[in-house]
């Protein structure tokens, strides 16, 4: 891990790297660097794209994108330290203009993750072939995973407002 850190710092300029004792490496970077950084790490052997997540820091007006990488085994039946390593890459983007370059070209399985984040947070991934809804069918004014989306209020306004059949019938007969 320390070695990798040295290499990364030599190769990239705008990184801050922390290594935690449980083989977790945390890299803070800019959104422009993400693709080349992922590419570099993939070539270094961190081939497993485990997770692409997003945190809505609503107080700061930012989304934080989290890319988590780990390594597959180099030798099929020998466990090495490298597999224990998990690299967490963080990049912040503005909440109002949520745009970031897609990483599909680097990691194929980032595709559904990006689709989901597009749907749940409203982040636009440039270069993604199908940013169609993945999970949801309904339209939401605010993407539901954003912090300013109040689920309970939404439920009351949507499902709660629908009358029961008896109520609707009574209403109908009254008018």
């Amino acid at each position, binding site marked *: 891990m320390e070695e990798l850190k040295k290499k990364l710092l030599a190769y990239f300029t705008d990184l801050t790297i922390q290594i935690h004792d449980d083989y977790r490496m945390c890299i803070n970077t800019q959104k422009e660097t993400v693709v080349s950084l992922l590419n570099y790490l993939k070539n270094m052997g961190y081939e497993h794209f485990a997770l692409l997540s997003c945190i809505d820091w609503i107080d700061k007006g930012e989304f934080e994108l989290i890319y988590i990488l780990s390594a597959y085994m180099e030798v099929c039946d020998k466990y090495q330290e490298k597999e224990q390593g998990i690299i967490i890459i963080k990049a912040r983007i503005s909440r109002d203009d949520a745009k970031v370059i897609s990483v599909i070209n680097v990691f194929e399985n980032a595709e559904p993750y990006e689709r989901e984040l597009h749907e749940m947070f409203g982040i636009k991934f440039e270069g993604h072939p199908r940013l169609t809804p993945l999970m*949801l069918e309904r339209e939401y004014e605010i993407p539901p995973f954003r912090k300013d989306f109040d689920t309970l209020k939404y*439920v009351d306004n*949507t499902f709660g407002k*629908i009358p029961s*059949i008896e109520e609707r019938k009574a209403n109908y007969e009254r008018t």
Partner: protein
Amino acid sequence: MDRNQISKWFKNPGKMANKYSFHVVYFCTGCGIIEIPPSITTRWDAERFGIIPVATPRQANLFLITGYVSTKTLKAIIRTYEQMPEPKYTVAFGSCPINGGMYYDSYNTITSLDKYIPVDGYIAGCMPRPEAIFIGVTHLWKLIDMDKADGYKRYRRDYKFYRANQEQLFKELGWPPLFKDASL
């Protein structure tokens, strides 16, 4: 089978046959589906009760709504329900279709099912055990005997209200009304 049963068979063979051969739609709507395989296999053997899962709604007369219903599934449920031939019965499973259950504040699951399709019986539990399913079926038999399991009749009678509720939720349903007088 006691004598009472035999006379019932003579009186209303259609109803009796209907009652003792529930064909269940094979549709996993929610997590309650996990107790269906144990019920229909050796340990509990639902076939003793005349319950058998069938592949298509066209052949089915019992619809088990197993657990929570997300809005996307609800659309499929309504379609499936409308495709089933009458007489048909709906039994809702577990807490969620009654009042939202665990997902009472989820933006994607409906809170009460009977606003959208008629429900003939609810089984409590999260999840209900296989025993509860069977006892639920015996209760349904009683209801059918008393002509109280009239969900499909209500659906036909109040179709415009059901349709109105469905349209209020989905804005656009994507298929024509099942019965003619569908608009309020």
